[in-house]
């Protein structure tokens, strides 16, 4: 009797288990690798979960790769052994490699082949162009996106009797010097990262970083940033530093620029809008601060700023079913509800007109927690992108950034004249570009 019921119990359990696994097996699975780590990695995981729970037909198998660079590296290693995922998250700087790889399934082709409901015009042009070919076809799906803003301490500005953020760089620098005179010890904190001063600055001032429209028109582009307004900008920063108005704040010093701003010791810094939530979570409670668009030099009209972050690439060589499942995922995360969710749990911004409209409609930007983030959209859509402000398409751009960074370190620590340092950085960067051109010989940028 007892044995019988035991058997019956076991049989039921077995039946249940097999039913469960049958359902799981019926789902069409696809692999998705992402690069983000820490809290943002958890959010990537959560996004997959939301997808898997939203329907019963497909299942996203999501695997964190422990970093943007390892995600790219691992995808390449796996692709070479035909073990790659269907979908992969690749950071902005990896775009060129993937465009030239011959290993991907272009996003616009997937949309056509699977008759997906994607309105390419809906994307903000500043976002779309960054991930599009020179002909304007989007080859990957923009995902976690951001742009640069200025963070300013309202109390510090109140000391010089101002209640609004500076709009021009001249005004900003004037404010900084006045604040210094008014007893603000550190009016501006910066680090050696090139994203803000070089890439975003050049975009909003419509200045070239390289010839051939920043590389969009060919792999034989040459760096020219050492001869543009950017060089003046850096010399001005150096002056501020020498006058004791600005400070270098890096992790090596002990405080990053963000930390120095959050604890109230520095009155302004430039960073991604995605840092908004971080400043909020770490700021001393008394900090009275706001966001502003990056200031522009007098005599320049503001151009759109650049998008940063990562996009999702579809890899070639997978089955129709896997593409179908990946397509379902891409459609899912593009929904306005999902854009709202992403904006709520991270500092990333919506990337389509319709999602932005939806966020406005539900009063997202009236929430004091998120107020000010709409400036990112304003900055990103300030003008239609020009050939110089649509993006940067240079080979091995991570290495070029590193070269510039090293030279900026030398200049800001007083080892080199700024102009000499920038000339050296451009020369070394050009060597990298020539190498890349040689490595990719015979391939054309789409």
């Amino acid at each position, binding site marked *: 009797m007892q044995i019988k019921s035991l058997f019956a119990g076991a049989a039921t359990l077995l039946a249940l288990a097999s039913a469960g696994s049958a359902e799981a097996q019926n789902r069409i699975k696809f692999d998705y690798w992402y690069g983000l780590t820490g809290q943002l990695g958890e959010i990537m995981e959560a996004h997959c979960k939301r997808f898997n729970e939203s329907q019963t037909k497909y299942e996203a198998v999501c695997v964190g790769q422990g970093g943007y*660079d390892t995600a*790219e*590296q691992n995808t*390449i290693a796996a*692709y*070479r052994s035909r073990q790659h995922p269907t979908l992969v998250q690749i950071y902005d700087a990896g775009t060129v*490699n993937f465009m*030239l*790889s*011959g*290993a991907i399934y272009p996003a616009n082709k997937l949309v056509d082949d699977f008759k997906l409901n994607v309105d390419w015009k809906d994307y903000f042009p500043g976002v779309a162009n960054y991930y599009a070919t020179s002909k304007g076809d989007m080859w990957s799906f923009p995902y976690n996106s951001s742009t640069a803003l200025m963070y300013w301490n309202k109390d510090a500005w109140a000391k010089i009797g101002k209640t609004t953020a500076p709009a021009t760089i001249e005004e900003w620098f004037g404010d900084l010097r006045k604040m210094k005179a008014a007893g603000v010890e550190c009016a501006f904190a910066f680090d*050696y990262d090139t994203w803000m001063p070089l890439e975003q600055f050049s975009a909003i001032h419509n200045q070239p970083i390289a010839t051939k429209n920043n590389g969009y028109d060919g792999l034989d582009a040459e760096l020219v940033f050492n001869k543009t307004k950017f060089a003046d900008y850096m010399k001005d920063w150096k002056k501020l530093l020498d006058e004791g108005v600005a400070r*270098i704040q*890096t*992790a*090596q*010093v*002990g*405080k990053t620029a963000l930390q120095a701003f959050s604890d109230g010791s520095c009155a302004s810094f430039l960073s991604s809008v995605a840092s908004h939530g971080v400043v909020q979570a770490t700021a001393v409670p008394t900090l009275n601060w706001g966001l502003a668009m990056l200031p522009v030099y007098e005599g320049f009209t503001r151009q759109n700023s650049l998008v940063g972050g990562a996009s999702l690439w579809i890899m070639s060589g997978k089955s129709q079913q896997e593409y179908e499942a990946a397509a379902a995922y891409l459609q899912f995360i593009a929904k306005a509800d999902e854009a709202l969710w992403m904006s709520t749990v991270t500092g990333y911004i919506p990337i389509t007109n319709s999602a932005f409209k939806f966020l406005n409609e539900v009063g997202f930007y009236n929430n004091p927690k998120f107020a000010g983030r709409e400036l990112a959209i304003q900055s990103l859509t300030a003008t239609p992108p020009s050939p110089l402000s649509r993006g940067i398409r240079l080979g*091995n751009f*991570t*290495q070029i950034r*590193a070269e510039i*960074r*090293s*030279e900026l*370190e*030398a200049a800001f*620590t007083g*080892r*080199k004249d700024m102009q000499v340092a920038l000339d050296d950085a451009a020369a*070394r960067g050009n*060597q*990298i570009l020539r*190498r*890349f051109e*040689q*490595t*990719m*010989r*015979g*391939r054309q940028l789409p």
Partner: protein
Amino acid sequence: MDKRVTFKSLWLAGALIAPQMLLVFVFFYWPASQAFYWAFTTQPPFGGVNEWVGLQNFREIFADRVYWNSVQVSVLFAVASTTLSIVMSLVLAVAVDRQLTGYRTYRFVLFWPYAIAAPAVGLAFRFIFAPQAGFMAALNDAFPGLWNPAVNGGHAMALIVFANSWKMVAYNFIFFLAGLQSIPRSLLEAAAMDGSSVVRRVFDIQLPLLAPTFFFLLVINITETFVDSFGIVDITTGGGPARATDLMVFKIYSDGFKALDYSMAAAQSIVLMTLVVCLTFIQFRFVERKIHYK
């Protein structure tokens, strides 16, 4: 070094060494040979056609003064951190080996640094050595400009030497201790009976008998500091300021792993490997000569 007494059976020797050689062949030489081939080509990240360029990659490396800087920096780093970590660990091992009260606790705690994962070490060192925020900030308040690895290349080098030694001391300590404990107690007792003091015994008996371990650690430490110190640099100085801590292996990693220039990374690795092989060969040739194994 040859043994006077050896066994003859060749097939047995072959069988004994076969597993190791097989593993090394499949998981090291086969893949490495592919990477070697890349050094003479330009290899696109996703594969496909690669162009044979002969020695071009090497010519580019040797013509680059930044590369020579990284060679210089690496040699300095290797010498400084090997010396520091070997001396420190030897002193500690000899001290612990005296087996005074509480030596088990010391032995246990001294091993901790090796067990801890790299990112945490980076954060801790950043906290301790940051000129504006950490413990060193207090010193900087008293003596302005005393310590600033963010600006001063020498300080940054000192920082990575210290961080690396901190970890390697634990590693060396374990092996030195094992070496010391393999020295038979009777030898020391006999010397003690002859009236030799503790310190005398260290220099007359323990250190000479420790020579094989010392040689092992010397070679391993130099090799590791050249080949395996990417993590320490990445989390503390990032190669800066202005390339003052731009180690060869850090450059290989950033060129190959971050920038995906596999050919350049491969060519640099060959240079690095040649350098380390030469150094090791010199050590076997000149240092091992002085070691008496018995």
